[in-house]
């Protein structure tokens, strides 16, 4: 199993909303709930299922039950049963049917495409911040995250 890659949590600050001051000294801010900010991400290849799995780690909620939410023929999101928070992404490598050299690029594109779709058509509108932050986390840790795929390409 690969190691967890710490994510920069400052990305959440971009999503802070503020009430217009209207000449007042009182500052009112609405910050993203810390439960929606992914703390770490990791990617691993499951040989038995032929799946590349991306997982997100959050505070306090690792005990929330999850459910699979298929997006297309290749990609399945793993979301929280109660919160619809994104806990993982499973990519069916076998179904992709691509050459070993293209694998990494193809999977990256698939993930990008489905995450973009998720932001356009969210499973739960209340979790839009979470989907946006997971997208940020993926692009931030892109190189290390997909490294298990390079090893897989070499072994094929």
């Amino acid at each position, binding site marked *: 199993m690969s190691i967890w890659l710490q994510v920069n949590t400052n990305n959440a600050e971009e999503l802070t909303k503020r009430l217009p001051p209207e000449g007042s000294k009182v500052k009112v801010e*609405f*910050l993203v709930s*810390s*439960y929606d900010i992914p703390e770490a991400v990791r990617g691993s290849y499951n040989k038995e299922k032929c799946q590349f799995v991306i997982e997100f780690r959050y505070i*306090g*909620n690792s005990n929330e039950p999850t459910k699979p939410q298929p997006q297309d023929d290749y990609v399945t999101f793993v979301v929280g049963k109660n919160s619809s*928070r994104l806990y993982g992404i499973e990519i069916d490598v076998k179904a992709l049917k691509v050459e070993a050299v293209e694998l990494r690029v193809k999977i990256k594109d698939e993930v990008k495409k489905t995450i973009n779709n998720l932001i356009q058509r969210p499973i739960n509108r209340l979790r839009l911040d979470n989907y946006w932050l997971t997208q940020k986390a993926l692009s931030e840790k892109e190189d290390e995250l997909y490294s298990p795929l390079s090893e897989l390409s070499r072994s094929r």
Partner: protein
Amino acid sequence: MLRQERSEKVNSYLQYVKYGSGGIVLFVSASLKANVPDIPFLSSVIVHCQYNAWWIIILCTFAGGLSQYLNSHIGSPGNWRIVQHILDQYREEVFGKDENTKEDAEHFHRITLFKHFKWRWALERWPWSGWVVPVARSGSRTKTNIQCFPASKERPDDAEGVAGQTWARNREVKVCGLPDLSIDNPPENDIIEYAKKAFVTDEWIRNRMRTNRRGLQCRSLLGICIEVKGVPWGALVIDSRNPEPSRLKNTTKNPKLKTYKDILSRLLEKV
């Protein structure tokens, strides 16, 4: 009364009811098969038990079940003591290490845990519309007459107070630099401004000012969402007499506070 205090007071009585009713059911059930002895007092007791067994067993089983339900509904005192300790540690981390606030009295800066209930047992106009109710507070002072706020699932825009808004928006709500309403006869504009920015009505502020001789002391608030297994459970509200507490700025990044919040989420599964 806070849930934490209620648990301490009621728990032992509920335990007595549970074990007492269990014992009575056991004795009455056993007496049904017993032969009536010749001993005068004991024979009359056993005859009474046999004659009234049907309703005693039903009543005691119901009482035992109800006390068990109430016990688990209120939460064990042991869990509430840990919740209290976490709130105290949280307060210490936010205010006890800040040069500007560490010398202040305990009740100048407080942390209150609110739980969301669909129904509130109180003589209110809309008890069924959804409320955030205080269940625990840091420190040992100012633990009575804490306000509850409406927070309806159907009308989240109408949620009141920072606690209600935090629950309704599922976001952390930070309000800093509130006007000083602890002075004599504060300007009307300040009352309106305070009410608007603290998500309450002007009337609510005036009522609080009438009941508190020293007026409203709180100058900054931070509402933090609390979830249990992915479900919004309530809110943690930090209130301070300091209009700009420096350590309130980065509570989301503080690893210690994250750990406390994590423990709290797991602990609240049991209460």
